[in-house]
Every structure is written in structure tokens, then in C-alpha cells.
């Protein structure tokens, strides 16, 4: 059974069809790229998957369950996590707290025990903290645990955002331009990190990116969107030489190089 199935999904804003008849099957463990010109509808695809928008038409199934139009929080709880094109950390909270927030729906105490703080409360808080520190260690952010997230350098903020997404224990991870604003060397590093994350956490990943070296280097399959429609799909090498993709997105030189 595919992990995610999108069937002829359309998302319209008024007259504008940002995404049209979008169909996608993600098998468990895949790492798929989603590219296309600015405004092609890539982020919108993420938004309908995660429930930020309710699709105008079409079906979305995750692990066999229909999720189209369900509240975003429920979808996250089912196992889909994402990062954002423009970083959305809880900027004034510490790095550690950012991770703890992501544990919210797994916390073992309820409202009354939060008020009366029995020993079980403290035990649970300690457990959460340990788990969060463990995760931060894996992404090499543990020595920044007490810093406000907003004070981290950009690259580390990106990493923290991914770590925070991982903390919800997803099966499917959606990354929206994680390399934006990075230089090639940093991009290289990020590519390694994405690969490692996938195998370490046993994830399926859908990746939006404009940095071609990263897309070509890490993805097994690439979809190209233009004006809300898929104009090409295939292995990175095929995509790179597809004339429609070159015209709409890559430009001459990039294809050659």
C-alpha cells in the first residue's frame, strides 16, 4: 500500500487554480523532489496535504485513511510533519522548548495533573526533556538547548525546524526549500543530513527545492509543476534533459552544466 496517495487534487483560490488535477503516489521510504517555477503551486501542495487548506477537489489518502479537509493538528498526529519555506520556529522559546512543544500530544499528564504536579508530573517532564535532548544530540544542537531559537544562525534554525518536525514522530516528512539562503557548501551538508535523517528515522520524504544540485543529488524521483499542473515526472537525469522543464524552469545553461 502506498504511504500517500493524492488523486486529482485541485486547489483553487477564487479564480486562481494554484494546483490542478495533481496526482501523486508515495511509496514508503521514497525520497521525492517537487520542483517548478515560483508560484507553480509547490507550497500549496504541502498545504493541502497538511490540512492548512481544504482542497477544492480530489482525494488524499494517508496510510489508507482519507485525510483531505481534516484539521491540520489531526493530520500531524497521524504522522505527517513539515517544515516551512519561511522559517516558523517559536523564536523566543528555547531550542529545547521548541522540541518539547512537538511532543505535546504524547504528554502523559492531563490538565489536573499539570495543576497539582504530583510526582508523575515531574517524572514525565524529565522523560520528555531527556528524549528531547537525545534528539538534539542527534542533530548536533544539544549545546544550544538553552538558547532562544531565534538567536541561532540561519542554518541551525533550518536544522532545528527539521528536528522539531521529527519530534512529532512522522512517517512522512515534507521539506519546503530547506536549502533556501544557503551557499553550496552548506547545501551539500544539508543534503547529507537529509539522507541520514531518512534512514535513521525510517521516513518517506517529499522535498521542495530550487537548488538543483541538491535535488539532483538526493532525490530518487522528481515531479515538476508549472501553473499548478505536473509537466514532467521521472528520474533526476531525465528531468534535467526534458525540454519543457528546461524552458519553464531550468533555463539553457543549467541543463547543459
Amino acid at each position, binding site marked *: 500500500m502506498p504511504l500517500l496517495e493524492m488523486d486529482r487534487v485541485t486547489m483553487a483560490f477564487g479564480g486562481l487554480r494554484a494546483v490542478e488535477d495533481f496526482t501523486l503516489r508515495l511509496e514508503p521510504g521514497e525520497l521525492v523532489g517537487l520542483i517548478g517555477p515560483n508560484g507553480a503551486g509547490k507550497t500549496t501542495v504541502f498545504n493541502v496535504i497538511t490540512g492548512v487548506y481544504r482542497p477544492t477537489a480530489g482525494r488524499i489518502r494517508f496510510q489508507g485513511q482519507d485525510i483531505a479537509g481534516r484539521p491540520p493538528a489531526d493530520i500531524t498526529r497521524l504522522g505527517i510533519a513539515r517544515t516551512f519555506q519561511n522559517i*516558523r520556529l517559536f523564536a523566543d*522559546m528555547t531550542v529545547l522548548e521548541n522540541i518539547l*512543544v512537538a511532543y*505535546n500530544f504524547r504528554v502523559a*499528564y492531563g490538565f489536573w495533573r499539570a*495543576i497539582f504536579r504530583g510526582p508523575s508530573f515531574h517524572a514525565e517532564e524529565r522523560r520528555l526533556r531527556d528524549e528531547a535532548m537525545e534528539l538534539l544530540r542527534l542533530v548536533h544542537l544539544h549545546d544550544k538547548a538553552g538558547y532562544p531559537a531565534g538567536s541561532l544562525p540561519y542554518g541551525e534554525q533550518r536544522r532545528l525546524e527539521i528536528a522539531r518536525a521529527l519530534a512529532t514522530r512522522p512517517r512522512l516528512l515534507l521539506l519546503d526549500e530547506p536549502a533556501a539562503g544557503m551557499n553550496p557548501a552548506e547545501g551539500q551538508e544539508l543534503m547529507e543530513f537529509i539522507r541520514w535523517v531518512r534512514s535513521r528515522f525510517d521516513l518517506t520524504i517529499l522535498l521542495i527545492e530550487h537548488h538543483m544540485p541538491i535535488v539532483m543529488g538526493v532525490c530518487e524521483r522528481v515531479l515538476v509543476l508549472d501553473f499548478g499542473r505536473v509537466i514532467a515526472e521521472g528520474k533526476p537525469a531525465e528531468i534535467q534533459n526534458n525540454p519543457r522543464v528546461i524552458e519553464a524552469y531550468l533555463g539553457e545553461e543549467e541543463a547543459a552544466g
Partner: protein
Amino acid sequence: MAARWQSLFLWTLATALAVALHLLGRAGVLSGYTVQVLSLICINIILTASLNLVNGYLGEFAIGHAGFMAVGAYVAGVMTVKLDLPFWLAFVAAGLAAALAAWLVGIPAFTTFGDYLAIITLGFNMIIVNVITNIDAVGGPRGMAGLPKATNLLWVYGTVAATLIVLGNLVRSNYGRLWTAIRQNEIAATLMGARVKQLKLTAFVVAGLFAGLAGALWGHLIQYINPSSFTYIKSTEILVMLYLGGMGSLSGSVVGATLMTVLLESLRGLGVWRLVISPLILIVIMLRMPRGILGFRELSLGGLFRPRGVSRRAAA
């Protein structure tokens, strides 16, 4: 754990102080005036700290807190005056009734946000006052007199302590983390699996509950309640104390409420100039400390400020 011993010590100290104050008051060492002002300070702390949950931690802008205070005051008043029930029962009922009211108000209010939410909360404040004004059974605009003098220092002090403990524990739990996360980035919080509406409503209901308790105490302190005491004027007073003390800081609420109450009392000698000078003082403090006296910082035992969050990097 050091933190736990520290707080235990703090609460023991607070309780001891409460009992001592109460006994001093009864022994006539503290004048009625001092007791009165102390009680009002405590009631203002309860109001301010509870509103802080919504406006400070959650980052919404609710401006109708006096409405829930009114519900508490009137429910308690009716129970003690008309039904002759004991005060403690009226007190509990006041809290529950105000919490219920907050729940009812919160459902429509949280379909919107920002200044629109402000208007809805204000609107309900006005509606509550308007309705009470039109209920002749509770005196309408004439108000309700003859409430028993049930509020004493023990009661107000106990309630303040309970309020601060409950709110303090909540904000230092999963709930507080989520409220702060919602304030900082609601969409991100939603996509972390947080049930945002429900969480907002929880904060609002808790805040309403304590406002109701404050209302019950207030009514049984002044021994007379009148709908015009709970209009937007009262609501804005609470706002001023809140933002003066600082958002997202319970000790800030304590400082803000105390400072404002004491300031206004101590300026009495100035007559009509009192209300000219005090807003000037407020403006100067806000200009010097734009985040309020303790905005997003807590005053801790050692007299140290623990900063929560450094100035955020300007959004690029």
C-alpha cells in the same frame, strides 16, 4: 529538586505571612484602611494574573475581563444575600459560573483574533452589564446591597496564593508551552499537532474562573455590587495593571497590580490632580520600560531576573 524546595519555601513563607496579616488585622494592629487596600491589591492581582494567561502567555487581546468578574460577583451575591448560602459555596459557584460564561463567550470569540477578538470580548462585557442592569431581581442599576462582609485577608490571600500556584503550574507545563507556542507562531503550533482552539478556550476559561472568584471576593469586600462597577472602565484598569507589570510574567502581574493600586491610593491627597498625575506616571514607565516592568521575565527568590527570550532577530 532545588526548584521544588525553593517554591515550597516560598509558599510556606507566603502562608505564614497571610496568617500573620490576618491575625494582625483582627487584633486591630492593621487599620481597616490597610486591610481594605491590601484586599484590593490581592483581588487586582487575581484579575491581572488570570488575564495574563490570555493576553500575556497566549498573546490574544481580550478586553472584557470585568464581565466575568461581574458574573462571579453577582452569582456569589445572589447566593449569599437572596439564598442565604454560606460564602464558601457562593465563592465556588462564582468561579464555576464565570468559567461557564467564559466558555460560552470563548466559543464565538476564538473564531476570530486580534482586534476583532478584542471587540467581541468587549461586546460580551457590555452585554453582561446590560443584562444585569435589566434584571430587577438583582437590583438592576441600583445594584445589590447588604452582601455579608465575608472577604477577609485570609480569603483574599489564600485565593491569590492558589491563583498563582495554579497559573504558575499551568504555564510551566505542557499547557504553558503550547500557549506560548501559539502566541509565537500559531500555524506552526497547529502543525505540531496542537488543538489550538481548544487550548485557547482552556486558557480563557481558566482566566474567567479566577476572574469570577475575584468578583465574589470583591463583592463581599465592598458589600455592595452595582453593574456600573464592571464596565469597560474596570476592564481597562485590569489591562493597565497587566501591561504595566508586564506580559507573560506572573510576578509582573503581582508587581503591576500592587504598584497601580498603591500608587492610586497614595496619590489621594492630590484631589482632582490625582488622575492627572497617575496617567503621566504610567506613560513615563511605559516609555522607559516598553515591555512593562517585568515583561516575559520572572522575579525569582534570589532577586534575580531570569530573562525568557532575548530580543528576537528582526524578521528579514
